């Protein structure tokens, strides 16, 4: 069962997505990659505190909640990367002095967490109906111990990899 759940080489694990599953947020999406799953909730364009408002575009905020424990430094750095990605595609100039909040909750982590967060964020943005200039996605790549590239690695493959990265 372990071998079947892993991707071999350039093969991604089976992935799926469900949109509009939460009733309160304006947009929501759940993205599953193998056993890794992330739930995204999007609110906006909504009222913003005067201290946070930007005069020419929407203020985008990303909150990433790990499965257990409080958010730490790793979550903060991932939040910044997600925020920069979303700011590049969302047409914030159409909603100045408003706030767009993206909340991501990690439901289970079995490798390739950052790319799963990126994909859930993109599907959440689509579900919320925010104006976007283009779409984005993420795939994690790892360099196996034998030098071969592995796409969408599991936790075990990530640990034994020589180097890893995700766009």
């Amino acid at each position, binding site marked *: 069962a372990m071998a079947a759940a892993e991707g071999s080489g350039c093969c991604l694990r089976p992935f799926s997505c469900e949109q509009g599953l939460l009733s309160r947020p304006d947009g929501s999406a759940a993205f599953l990659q193998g056993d890794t799953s992330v739930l995204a909730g999007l609110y906006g364009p909504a009222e913003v505190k005067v201290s946070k408002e930007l005069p020419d575009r929407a203020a985008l905020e990303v909150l990433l909640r790990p499965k257990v424990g409080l958010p730490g430094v790793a979550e903060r750095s991932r939040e910044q990367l997600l925020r920069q990605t979303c700011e590049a*595609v969302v047409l914030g100039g159409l909603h100045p002095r408003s706030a767009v909040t993206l909340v991501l909750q990690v439901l289970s982590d079995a490798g390739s967490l950052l790319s799963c967060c990126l994909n859930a964020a993109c599907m959440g943005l689509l579900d919320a109906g925010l104006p976007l200039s283009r779409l984005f996605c993420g795939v994690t790549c790892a360099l196996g111990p034998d030098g071969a590239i592995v796409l969408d690695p599991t936790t075990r493959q990530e640990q034994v990899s020589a180097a890893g990265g995700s766009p």
Partner: protein
Amino acid sequence: MAAGSGVAAEACVGQVVLPGDVLLLPAHPDEDGEQLRLGASVAPRGRLLCGPGLRRCAAGLLVTKCGLLRHRQPSGGAAAAGGAYWVDSQQKRYVPVKGDHVIGIVTAKAGDVFKLDVGGSEQASLSYLAFEGATKRNRPNVQVGDLIYGQFLVANKDMEPEMVCIDSKGRSSGMGIIGQDGFLFKVSLGLLRKLLAPKCEVIQELSQLYPFELVLGMNGRIWVKAKTVQQTLIIVNILEACEYMTADQRKQALAKLSGH
């Protein structure tokens, strides 16, 4: 980073388009930027309207929301020059648009101006003189928490939205304070546009069931009032469930209710 070459806009009408798609518009062979046309021209060039979900870009139209692409021919002639393109998309959050009729909730009275919550990113303002027959001596009786049905006079991304409860001729034409009782609830904007379509089946079938009063606001808010609380709640539940029910399921549910 650069988008690939686009697809012709006419080919995509009725299909799903995604943000980032570039739609190419038919080129006008008689268009010449250098020469000015004097005298009566053969046919005036139609103006293309770029509707919700689309923005103009260098190559043509850039899709910014996902949904179905729609097209409407201009009413003038059979020539395809002009017309309107837009994307039928679905969302829950409302963005104020000038001319939309919405239901607002009064949150504050600041001097001569009421502040209304319309579900957008900013509160809308409504002057006390913007009611039919209102003067400085004869002020409308509006309290905090009242429901107001009005239309946007000013609504753009740079200014605070302003609402009025009179039309351009000074008549109320159905707008104003919504009466006591009744039930206010929220639905998605796509369902609301479906209910506002002329000869909507849902509303016709519901009106066979019980008599009721209905106010539909473009910001996703619906106000219903029937004779009893139970009838009101039944209508609310049917309207909320309409989003995910097929026409047959809805007819079955209504048949069961009218049988009781």
